[in-house]
């Protein structure tokens, strides 16, 4: 993961990965949602070249509300609210636009806005105020938005138990498939499990495939594998398993 600018480290020396790691830890252990979201905004400003950041979430009426910001600066809060009115949320076109990253406004109020969403359901928006956002910073900002979504989905904040349980169940199933594929790759190439997992991950990146989907292909032989995972001596994986 890249941090602010090209060196992966922000001006204060805090790598984005460290900030995101800290946030995950806090989100898991800390029960106060607001604290988690506020810290998230503060850390975003630490690692991104931004003057401010804020999180807007739909309330029960479907209106966007600022729930957290990187600071208590009235200007920042004003800009967040103003921004909320620039993009009213009651039309289908706006609903569609909400799912995309976009840039709104100019000057000091220029905001890069990232959807806070899970499975296409938009819960809110993460705004980063900056004149310019380096392409390398976009995935970092997206990660902050995704973290916000995860924090919002904590069970005590409204996600029903069965939904969460099913999500956990599916994650565990995926984990089992990946572990089996690690075993296959370890045996095939005389690697230790760590080395096998690294090879699987590298192949998934190269193939732009999901890790679980690729793992399933490795285990079942249901579809051709990339060269780095094929059985030595096989011209192409023949799916003989």
């Amino acid at each position: 993961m890249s941090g602010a600018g090209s060196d992966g480290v922000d001006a204060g020396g805090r790598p984005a990965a460290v900030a995101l790691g800290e946030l995950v830890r806090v989100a898991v252990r800390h029960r106060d949602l607001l604290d988690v979201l506020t810290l998230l905004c503060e850390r975003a400003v630490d690692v991104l070249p931004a003057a401010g950041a804020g999180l807007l979430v739909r309330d029960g009426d479907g209106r966007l509300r600022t729930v957290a910001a990187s600071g208590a600066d009235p200007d920042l809060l004003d800009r967040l609210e103003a921004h909320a009115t620039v993009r009213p949320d009651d039309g289908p076109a706006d609903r569609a636009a909400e799912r995309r990253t976009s840039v709104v406004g100019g000057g000091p109020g220029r905001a890069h806005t990232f959807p806070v969403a899970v499975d296409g359901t938009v819960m809110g928006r993460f705004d980063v105020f900056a004149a310019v956002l380096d392409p390398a910073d976009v995935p970092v900002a997206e990660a902050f938005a995704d973290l916000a979504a995860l924090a919002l989905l904590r069970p005590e904040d409204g996600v029903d138990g069965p939904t969460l349980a099913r999500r956990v169940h599916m994650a565990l199933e995926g984990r089992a498939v990946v572990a089996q594929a690690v075993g296959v790759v370890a045996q095939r190439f005389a690697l230790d499990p760590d080395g096998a997992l690294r090879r699987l991950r590298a192949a998934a990146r190269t193939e732009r495939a999901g890790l679980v989907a690729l793992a399933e292909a490795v285990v079942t032989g249901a579809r051709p594998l990339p060269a780095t995972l094929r059985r030595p001596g096989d011209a192409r994986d023949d799916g003989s398993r």
Partner: protein
Amino acid sequence: MAAGEWQRLADLLREASEGGDVGGAVARVAARLLAADDVGLAVLSGEVPSVVGSSDRAVALLEREFTVGEGPSVVTVREGRPTLVEDLSAPAAGMPVFAVEAAAAGCAAAFAFPLRIGAGLVGVLTASRAARGPLDDVAHTDALILAAIAAVALVGDGQRTGVGTDATPGRGGADPLGTDLVLGDVVHVAVGMVAEQLRIGVVEALVRLRAFAFASDRPLRDVAAAVVARELLLER
């Protein structure tokens, strides 16, 4: 699923494992938890799936599905995903032949869930009801969990490697179902290694590992760890 139900399930499974009827026990508990009239389990072994159920009707329904080659369980086995049919007689369900037979047996809706060991399909758990209508969210989730339990409990059946045989002494407290029902990563990694080494499927690899563990009177996890550490090589 309430905590009391889990405990009841654990007790039932433990009991049943002594009599060798793990599948029947899972099916009966599943029928109650899912508010189903019947629950059947089909295990894919050889040409014809072996079927157990919560009742004679559950067994008969599942056997008919595989005989006519049509029905939610057949779809689930073919595609490896849950198949939820809240109205079997609806044209959109696309199973007219089985729908007639099911209706004659008093079954209007059926929900099939794959039994998987990682990427390997072991069989199918199918809950059926006399009344049309969807499976609610809680039942759906419970069915997924029960299917996961059934998959692990049923693989290795016939070698007396049912529930509890691999439980490590002293580990039962926090996990009422016993360690045997939750395969750890190390078991899955070992399964993958054995599958690749012997050029067999992962389900068969797990059966081989369990058989070895039983024959050598060692916990499955220890055997799996030895395979991963390359201290143990199963023979063809």
